[in-house]
C-alpha cells in the first residue's frame, strides 16, 4: 500500500521539467559509497485489509480494559473518556495541524490551548500553566531545572514516596551535575517530616513532594512548603489532576511549581503513551518556563486572537540558552484535556473525584475486614492504597489473574520488605459489583480455596459481567 498521488506519467513530466532524465540523476548528491545497493530487508508491504488484520491480531493479544478487570494505577488511570472528546479531537483540523507557527490559520489550536492553560491554572490554584510537556516525568525534571537555575543551588530533596518511575526520569535529566537526596518513607506510608527538615538546608534548590504519593497516601504539602521556604528553596508538588476535584490544590498549599500527569484528563492509558505533562508555576518564575505558552492578543482588525508568546525563552530563538530543548510537545492531548475539562465542568469533576474516592474507601474497608489482609498504612488516601496480603503478593495476583482480574501492582521488587504488598487503584470505571468481586476473589486467594474450576469462574472476565453489574 502506497500513499502517493503520482503516476509514472506525472513523474516523467516532473523530471522533464526539472531537466533530468531519471530519478537517479536527482540522487547524485548522495556519494556512491554510501548509496544503498540492496533493498531493505523488511516484510512485504500489505494491503489495508491485511494491515488491519495484522494490527487487530496484535491488539487482541493484550489484556486490556474493558476485557479484563484491572486495578492497576501507579500514575496511569483508566478513567472514562466521554465520547465527545474523541469525536471532536479526531477532527482533522485539530489532528493534522502542527505547532501554530502561523497563528492566523491556527486559532483553533491556539484558543483551545489557551483554555487548557486556564483550566489547569484553575485546577491547580497556580498562577500560570503552560501548553504541555511530554509526561509527568519530564515535567518534574523541567521543574527541578527551573529550581536549580532560579536558586543557583544544586541539591534536591525528594520525598521517598515519589513514584519510582517519575524518579528515574528526573535522575536521567539531572545526571549531569546535581545531587538528589531521598527522604525516607515513614511508617504511615508518607514522608518522614523530621527527616525532611533535617536534610533540607541552605544548599537545597527544591523540595519535591507528590500527593497522593506512590502509595496513594495524601502528603502534607503545606508542611513541605514551610520546610522548603524556610531555607529559600522552591517547593515542587506532583499532583494527580482528578484528585484535585476533592483535594486542596498545590497553589493553596504554597507550591512554587506544580507538575502532574494529565493522561487521566480525557486520554486513554495507551500502554503508557502518549501522555500529557502538566506544568504550572508562580508568575514570578515565568521567564524560566519551559515549552510553549499561549497568550491572548488582538489582530489587525481589533479582534481577539491568540498567539505563542514569550518565545524568547524557547529553543528556536534562544538555541543553547533556551529554558528547555522541547519543541514538539503533546498538543493534541492538551486539546483533548480542554474538551474533557469543559465537558465535566465544575460539578462533574467534583462528582468524579467523590466517586473515585468513595469507591476506593469502600473497597479498602472491605479488604481490611478480610481475614489475613490489612491496609498497612494509616494515612489518608484518595483512590489508591496499599494492601498487605497474608501470602506473597505474587501468589495473590496470579490467583486473581486466573479469575480474569489484574489485581494491582506488585510492590515487592521496588521496595524491599514489601513482598506481600500490592497497590490497588479505583476509578469510576470500577462498578461496585467489581469491587465486591475483587473482595471475594481476595478471600479465596488467601484461603487457598480458589481452585474452583467451574467454567464460569475460570473464564470470568469483564466481558462476562452483566450490564447492570458493570454500572
Amino acid at each position, binding site marked *: 500500500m502506497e500513499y502517493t498521488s503520482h503516476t509514472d506519467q506525472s513523474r516523467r513530466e516532473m523530471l522533464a521539467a526539472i531537466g533530468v532524465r531519471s530519478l537517479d540523476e536527482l540522487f547524485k548528491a548522495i556519494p556512491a559509497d554510501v548509496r544503498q545497493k540492496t533493498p531493505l530487508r523488511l516484510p512485504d508491504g500489505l494491503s489495508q485489509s491485511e494491515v488491519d488484520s495484522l494490527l487487530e491480531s496484535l491488539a487482541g493479544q493484550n489484556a486490556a480494559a474493558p476485557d479484563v478487570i484491572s486495578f492497576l494505577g501507579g500514575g496511569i488511570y483508566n478513567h472514562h473518556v466521554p465520547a465527545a472528546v474523541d469525536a471532536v479531537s479526531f477532527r482533522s483540523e485539530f489532528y493534522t495541524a502542527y505547532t501554530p507557527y502561523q497563528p492566523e490559520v491556527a486559532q483553533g489550536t491556539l484558543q483551545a490551548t489557551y483554555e487548557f492553560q486556564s483550566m489547569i491554572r484553575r485546577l491547580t490554584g497556580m498562577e500560570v500553566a503552560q501548553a504541555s510537556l511530554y509526561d509527568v516525568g519530564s515535567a518534574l525534571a523541567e521543574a527541578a531545572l527551573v529550581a536549580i537555575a532560579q536558586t543557583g543551588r544544586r541539591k534536591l530533596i525528594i520525598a521517598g514516596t515519589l513514584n519510582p518511575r517519575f524518579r528515574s526520569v528526573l535522575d536521567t535529566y539531572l545526571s549531569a551535575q546535581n545531587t538528589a537526596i531521598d527522604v525516607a518513607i515513614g511508617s504511615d506510608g508518607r514522608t518522614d517530616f523530621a527527616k525532611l527538615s533535617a536534610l533540607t538546608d541552605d544548599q537545597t534548590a527544591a523540595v519535591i513532594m507528590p500527593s497522593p504519593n506512590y502509595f496513594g497516601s495524601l502528603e502534607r504539602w503545606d508542611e513541605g512548603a514551610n520546610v522548603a521556604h524556610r531555607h529559600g528553596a522552591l517547593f515542587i508538588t506532583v499532583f494527580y489532576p482528578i484528585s484535585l476535584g476533592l483535594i486542596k490544590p498545590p497553589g493553596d498549599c504554597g507550591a512554587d511549581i506544580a507538575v502532574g500527569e494529565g493522561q487521566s484528563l480525557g486520554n486513554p492509558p495507551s500502554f503508557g503513551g502518549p501522555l500529557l505533562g502538566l506544568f504550572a508555576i508562580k508568575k514570578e518564575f515565568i521567564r524560566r518556563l519551559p515549552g510553549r505558552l499561549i497568550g491572548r492578543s488582538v489582530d*489587525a482588525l481589533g479582534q481577539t486572537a491568540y498567539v505563542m508568546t514569550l518565545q524568547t525563552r524557547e529553543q528556536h530563538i534562544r538555541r543553547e540558552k533556551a529554558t528547555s530543548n522541547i519543541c514538539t510537545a503533546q498538543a493534541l492531548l492538551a486539546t483533548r484535556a480542554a474538551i474533557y475539562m469543559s465537558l465535566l465542568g465544575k460539578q462533574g469533576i467534583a462528582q468524579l473525584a467523590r*466517586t473515585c474516592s468513595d469507591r476506593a474507601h469502600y473497597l479498602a474497608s472491605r479488604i481490611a475486614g478480610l481475614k489475613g489482609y490489612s491496609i498497612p498504612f494509616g494515612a489518608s488516601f484518595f483512590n489508591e492504597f496499599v494492601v498487605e496480603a497474608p501470602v506473597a503478593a505474587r501468589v495473590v495476583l496470579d490467583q486473581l489473574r486466573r479469575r480474569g482480574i489484574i489485581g494491582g501492582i506488585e510492590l515487592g521488587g521496588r521496595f524491599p520488605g514489601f513482598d506481600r504488598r500490592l497497590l490497588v487503584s479505583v476509578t469510576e470505571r470500577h462498578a461496585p459489583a467489581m469491587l465486591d468481586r475483587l473482595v471475594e476473589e481476595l478471600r479465596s486467594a488467601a484461603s487457598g480455596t480458589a481452585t474452583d474450576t467451574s467454567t464460569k469462574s475460570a473464564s470470568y472476565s469483564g466481558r462476562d459481567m452483566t450490564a447492570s453489574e458493570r454500572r
Partner: protein
Amino acid sequence: MDLKLGKTIFDISHENTIGVMPPAPGVAASDKSWQIPAEFLRESAIDWPEVSEPEVVRHYIQLSTLNHHIDKDTYPLGSCTMKYNPKINDRAASLPGFVGLHPETPDADCQGALQLMWELAQDLAEITGMDDVRLQPSAGAQGEMVGLLIARAYHRQRGENRRTVIIPDSSHGTNPASVTLSGFEPVPIKSNADGLVDPDVLASVLNETTACIMLTNPNTLGLFEREIKRIVDMAHAKGALVYNDGANTNALLGLARAGDMGFDVLHLNLHKTFSTPHGGGGPGAAAVGVKKHLIPFLPGPAIVRSETNGIVQFKRQSPDPLSIGSVHTFFGNFGVLVRAYTYIRSLGAPGLKRVAEDSILNANYLRTLIKDAYDIPHAGPCMHEFVASASRQKKNGVRGGQIAKRLLDFGVHPPTVYFPLIVPEALMIEPTETESKERIDAYAAALLAIAKEVETNPDFVNAAPHTTRVRKIDEARAARDLDVG
C-alpha cells in the same frame, strides 16, 4: 450563526449547566475512620466552565474551523515533514487492545504490544543500519538528549571527560538546546558556501575535548553532506562520536543509511518520517539507534524475544547497568509507535523507497518552478526540501515573513521562515511525497504571483493576510500585556 472570535468556553458558561456527569459513588459511605480529614480538602469548587455537551462540541468544532491542516491542503513547513498520514495508522492506534492497555500490565498480558515494539525496533535498525534501537523518547528533541547523554556516558566509561559538542550553524534550535541540557558546551561551526560542513573548518575545532559532532544529514538546507565519510573518519580519529539528527530521514529511506555512513548514534522523528499526524504540536516520538559500542548505554527498557520449545515470548528487560536511565515515565509514546509500525508494514521496502524518491522529486520540481522568481542560494539538486531566500523581495521592502502571510490568502500553509539562520530571509520548503503534481503547480503559481505583487504592489503584500478569518496578530502586545489564561 457565525463564530464570535475570542469568545471562550468560560464566556458561554452558565451556572448549574451539566455537561458529562460521572456516575454517583453507589457504595455505602465508609465510616469516619476512613474519611479524608478536612485539612486535605479543597475549600471551593474548581471554577471550570459549566457548559452542556452540545455547546461544548459546537464551541470546539467552531474553533477547529479556524485551523489550516494537512488534510485540507498543502503544508510544506520545512523540516517538519507535513505529509498526509494514512488514516489506517490512526485506526490501528485506536484499537481497544492498545488504548485500553495499562503500562503496568505484566508481560504475559501484553505480548501483542511488546511484539509490536520489538519488531519496530528491528525494522528501524534495518532501515538506518544501526545495531540496536530503543523507542522511549517522546519527540526528536528528547531523542537528541538521549544521544548526547549516551555520548557522555560512553566517554566517562572510558575515563575521559570530554566537554564539547560541535554543531553546524545550520542546525535546528533543539540541537544546541539539547547540548546544554546534557551538560555539554556547544561549539558552532560555519557552513561553507555550498551549505555543507567544511572539513578544514571542522579540523580547526575538533580536538580531544570533543565528545561528539552533531550533524543533520541531509542537513536543514536539504543538502546531503557529501564529505560525510571523511567527517566521520576525522571525528573517530580524535576519539569523538558522530551523532545524526535523523529528523530528515524521509529523504533517505531505502536510498542510504546513516549506519553505513559511519554515524555512531542517531535519532529518528517517528512522527515525521513514519507518519503520525502532528496534533497541533505533538504527540511525537523518537527512536534512538546506536552502533554496537554504545548499546549498553541505551535508555530502558529493552524488549527481548525468546523462544523455548517453539513458544515465542517477549519481555521488558531492565536496562544495562551502564544505561543512561529512563527518559519517559513508561515506554515512550506507544500510540505513535503503533502508527510507525502500521506505516512500515503497509509500505514495505519498495513503498518506503518510493517515499524518499517522491519526496526528493517533489522538492526538486517545486524548486525548479520557482527558481527564477526567488533566490536559491545553494546549488541543486536538493534532497527532500530546499531553502529559498526572499532577499530579492526584501529590496522591494517585503520580508520573507510577509510572503508567508500572503500565502495564507491562497489557502495553503507557508514554508518555515527565517530558518535555517544562515540563509537571510529564509523560506524553507518541504513539499513531502504525498503532494500531487497539481498541488505543487498551484503552490508554485501562488509563490510566483506573490513575487510579481512584490514588484507591483509591495504594500498589499505587507498588509497580508487579507482573507483569513483572523488577520495579522499583535505579538508584541501578547508579550507585553500578558494574558495566558
